[in-house]
C-alpha cells in the first residue's frame, strides 16, 4: 500500500486522467481510503472538475415501451444505471 498522498484531489485527478478504471485500484495506487476517494470524486463532480455521465444502456427516454428490443435487453427492470466520470477542463 502506497503512503497516503498530501494532495488527495490532485492524486485522484491524475488517476482519472491515467485511466485507472476502479476506485479500488485508485486506493491501491494512492494509499487513500476508498471512502476518501469516493467523497473526492463526488466533490470533483460537484465542482465541475469531473463530468459524470449516466450510462442508460441504450434505453429510450420513453422507457421500454418505445423500444423494439424491450424485454430482450435485460435492463427493462430497475432503472439504475452506471455512471462514468470524465475530466473536464477548467
Amino acid at each position: 500500500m502506497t503512503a497516503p498522498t498530501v494532495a488527495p484531489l490532485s492524486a485522484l485527478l491524475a488517476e482519472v486522467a491515467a485511466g485507472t478504471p476502479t476506485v479500488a485500484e485508485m486506493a491501491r495506487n494512492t494509499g487513500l481510503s476508498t471512502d476518501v476517494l469516493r467523497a473526492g470524486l463526488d466533490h470533483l463532480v460537484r465542482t465541475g472538475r469531473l463530468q459524470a455521465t449516466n450510462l442508460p444502456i441504450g434505453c429510450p427516454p420513453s422507457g421500454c415501451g418505445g423500444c423494439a428490443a424491450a424485454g430482450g435487453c435485460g435492463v427493462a427492470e430497475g432503472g439504475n444505471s452506471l455512471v462514468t466520470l470524465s475530466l473536464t477542463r477548467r
Partner: protein
Amino acid sequence: MSVTDRTSLPLSLITPSAKACCRTDTGRGAAPTDPVVALVGAPNTGKSTLFNALTGAGVTMGNWPGTTVEVSRGLWRSTAAEVACDCETCTCDDADGRLDITLIDLPGTYSLDPHSPDEALTRELLVGKPAAERPDLSVVTCDAARLTSCLYLVAQLREQKLPMVVALTMGDVAAKRGVHIDVSALARELGCPVVEIDPRRRGGLMALAEAVRDGLGRPAPAPRATPLDDDDLALEDDRFAWIAHVVDAATGAAAQNARTWSDRVDRWVTAPVVGPLIFLAVMWLVFQLTTTVAAPLQDLLDDVFSGPVSQGAIVLLSAIGLGGSWVQGLVVDGLIAGVGMLLTFVPLMTLMFALLAILEDSGYLARAAVVTDRLMRSIGLPGRAFLPLIVGYGCNVPAISGTRILPNARQRILTALLVPFTSCTARLTVFVMMGAIFFGPYAGTAVFAMYVTSILIIIVVGLGLRSTLWRKEPIDPLVIDLPAYQVPTIRLTASVTWLRLKGFLQTAGGIIVITVAAVWLLQSVPVTPGKNFAEVPVSDSVYGVVSSGIAPVFAPAGFGSWESASTLLVGFVAKEAVISSWAQTYAVAEPDNHAAPGDLGAAVFQTFTESSGGHPVPAALAFMVFLMAYTPCVATLAAQWREIGPRWTLFGVGMQLVVAWTLAVAVFQVGRLFL
C-alpha cells in the same frame, strides 16, 4: 410544546440574540433575544429529523435528497435536565437550566462553495454576513456511515471563527456497515465537540443540548490554518488531506484501508493479464454448462415438435379436409418445423440467461466490464464504448442505441460500426446447433470460440478504423466503482431470466412466424412452368433459385450450396430465422421425416460435406464465422440508420460483408489443410 414557523426566511430576520427564560405561553415564537443556532449539514444526514425532534413539529421528514429546500425556523426549548421540557405544564418564569434557542434549519449542502442556490444561501448566512448577524453557533449534522462525505463542510466551517458542534447521526447504519467511530478522537481532530445522536428515537438530544449551551457560553475556537496559496485546488486538496487524516484518526487507519475479501478477489479478477483469462474461463464454463445440460432437454422438445405435434397437426388438418393441401404444408413444414425448431432452444436460452443473470447479480459482470474497458483502452478505443459492446452480446439493437452515451459523434459512429460484430444471443442458437452437429461433445467450446473470435474481430476492426478514419480521436477516461460481491438472489435471477426469455419468445412468436410464412411462400412458388403452387421441390422454387444464384459466392468458404446460402439470406431478417428456414427447407425437401429427430443435423452435415469437397468441419467453422460477422438483422440496421445515418449504415453493411466473407474464406482454406 414548541412553535415552528416554516417560511422562506428573509436574511434580515436572522438576528442572533440570547434569551434564557422559559415563558408560560405555549404558543410563543422565537424572541429576538434568543440565541440563534443554525442547523447545517449535507442532504440526508438527518438534519430535518433533528430539527423536528428539537422544535416539535413542522418540517417534512424523509430520506429524499433536497428535502430542506427553504429555511425553517423554530423554537428549541433546550434543557440539560434528564426529563425534556413539557411546556404545556411548565409555568415557571425563569426555569433552572432551560434555554430558549431560535433554531434555523438551513438547506442541505455539501459545502460552502456557491455552486447551487442552497449552498450560496448557506454560505451567505454562515460566513457572508457580518459576525453580529451570524448564528451564535452551528450544529453540523454528519452521517456516521458517510463521514468522509460530510466532513468537507465541517472543514470549511472550521476555517471560520464560528462556534460549532458536530452531531453524528446514523450511528446504527454505520455500525451495520462495520464503521466504528471514536467520538472523542473525532472531536479532538475536528477541534469542536462531537455528540452522537439518534433524532428518530430522540437519543442524545440532552447531550446535544448540553454541548450547544456549553458552546454558546464559550468563545469560538481558533480557525483551522489553511494554505496561503490562492489556487482553489490546492485549498481543496488541503481540506481533503485534513479530512483523510481526521477519518483515519477517528475510525482507525487500518480499518479504513482494510481490504475486504471483495478487494482481494478483485486484485486478481481485474488484473490486466489474469483478469481477461479468468473472464474467458468463466464464459467458457457458461457455454459448456449450457450446451451440456440443455442438450437432452432440447432433444426432448425436438422429439415433441417433430413427432406428436406434427402428427397431431396432420391428423387435425386431415379431419377437416385439409390433409395434403398447401395449408398442411404451411402449418407442418412451415410453422411447426420452423418455429418449433426455434422453440427447442428455450431450455438452452433459459439456462444461458440464468447463468448470465447469476454472474450479473453476483457482481462479476461489473468486473468483466473493467477487464473489457482496460482491453479497449489498451488498443486505443474509447473506454466508454465497452458498455454498448457488452450490451451487444445480448442484443445489438439496444447496444446501437446505447452509443448515445459517447461524447462525440465520431466515437458514436465508430462504436456503432463495431456493435454488429458482437455475437448476440440470436446468433447463439445457430452456433449451438452447428456445434451440436459438427463438434459433438465439444459444442460448448466451439460456441465459446465464436465469442472469442467476435472479440478478436472487434479489436482488429476497431484498430483498423482507429488507425485510418479515427486517428485523431481523444480517449476519455472512465471510472467504475465496483459493487461488493454478493450471493445472487433467486428472485432477481428468475426475474431477469424470464425478462430475457420473454424477449426471445416474443421474437419467435412475432418476426420469426412472419419470416417462416414468407420463406414457405417463396419455397412454394415454382419458377419452372408446369409445377403447381406448394407442390414444387424447394430447389425449383423462387427461394431455391435465388439462393442458387448467390451460392457460388460462398464456394471458396466451403458452404456454396443453395441450402446454406438461403439461410444467410433469411438471416438478414433475424438470425433465429436461420434455424427455422433450415428446418423448413429440409422438412419440405424430405416431407416424410417429421418423426425422425436428428435428421436435420444429418442433412445439414451432408450438405456441408458436399459443398466443401469433404471438409465439413472447416466449412462449418467458416459458416459460423460468416454468420457472426455479417449484418445481424434488419432491426439492427434500422437502429444504425437512426443513430448514425444511411451513409455510415451502408458503409457498415459493406464492411461487415467484406470482413465476414474474407474471414470465412480464410478459415475454410486454412482449415481444410488440417481437417
